[in-house]
């Protein structure tokens, strides 16, 4: 065997083993599966109450999202979630639960409070959309409150009432209940999605989202 051949064989074999190991690890349960439609949690989680609902009450599928308004990936998934709801207006509804990761996202709790405060005046989903769509404007702000107030005034909200809502212990308790639900459901990352109680992993693509929904519609 020529001298140069031995190292080449070792390199090729090592690359093959590394590729195999990486693929194996990426398919491990308790991690997002490579195939998006896969469900990693065998048991079905029942969410008892809570969450904001968007879509028909009697929809065949309930898409539960545990999200954090300051999390960039939640912001990236947001247009996909909106689009999927418009594609399946009768069959699908969204149930959004707050899961602010306050240790890494200092404005996330106040953003959840802003959504709930807007909800008190009947404009939860407008604020929900606005928080994600304007995430970059407030995300790194040392004082995000005026930005939230400005967003609220766009929807014609009573800004004094809205600002009271931002400090409401009741609204904070509602958000913390969502966090408890998330912890009970073993939510480890945001966004985490469940369809009819089964955790699903959706790639950041509309095509994949449609595939996941279709697979659950025809179960």
């Amino acid at each position, binding site marked *: 065997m020529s*001298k140069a051949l*031995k*190292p080449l064989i*070792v*390199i090729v074999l*090592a*690359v093959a*083993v*590394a*590729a195999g*190991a*990486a*693929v194996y*690890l*990426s398919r491990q349960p*308790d*991690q*997002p*599966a*490579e195939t*998006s439609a896969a469900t990693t949690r065998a048991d079905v989680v029942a969410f008892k109450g809570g969450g904001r609902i968007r879509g028909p009450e009697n929809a065949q599928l309930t898409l539960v999202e545990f999200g954090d308004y300051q*999390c*960039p*990936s939640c912001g*990236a998934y947001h247009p996909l979630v909106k689009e999927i709801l418009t594609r399946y207006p009768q069959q699908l509804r969204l149930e959004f639960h707050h899961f602010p*990761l306050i*240790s*890494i*996202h*200092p404005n996330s709790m106040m953003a959840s409070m802003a959504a709930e405060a807007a909800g008190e005046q009947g404009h939860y989903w407008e604020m929900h959309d606005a928080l994600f769509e304007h995430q970059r404007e407030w995300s790194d702000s040392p004082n995000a409150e005026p930005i939230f107030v400005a967003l609220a005034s766009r929807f014609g909200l009573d800004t004094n009432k809205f600002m009271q809502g931002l400090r409401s212990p009741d609204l904070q308790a509602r958000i913390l209940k969502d966090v408890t639900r998330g912890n009970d459901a073993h939510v*480890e*990352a*945001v*966004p*985490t999605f469940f369809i009819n109680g089964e955790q699903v*992993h*959706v*790639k*950041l*693509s509309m095509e994949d989202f449609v595939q996941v929904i279709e697979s659950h519609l025809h179960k």
Partner: protein
Amino acid sequence: MKTRSVVIAVLAFVGMIDALYLSIKRNAGPIPCHVTRGCTDVLTSKYSEIAGIPLSWFGLAFYLVIFSLAVFTIFEDPKQPLQQLTNWIFYLAGAALVVSALLVGIQAFILKAFCEYCLLSAALVLTMFLLTPHPGRR
């Protein structure tokens, strides 16, 4: 140097798995961390790619080159040591160390989120750099 080359090859092998894993997982949904918090934030941030190419692919190329250089050093003829290859490992690991430090800084000060897979890569690069003798010292 042979023992060091074996260790560097093993570290680069681990790095290849790490980079390949991240390349597979990217855009495959949220990536849960086990040690840190914020893997998905880091891996989907605007700093996670250059001109649309994920950093993990650059990492994979780096580890593959380092692994290959280390393997050739292991199989070198003792009478004709491949000094140049070791020098290349040193310079490449040095450059990667600068990039890794920058990326850890971005995680700490800009994103304020840490990705354990990225920290592992930084640790691997640092160890490889420290293990490789400085070209001037041989």
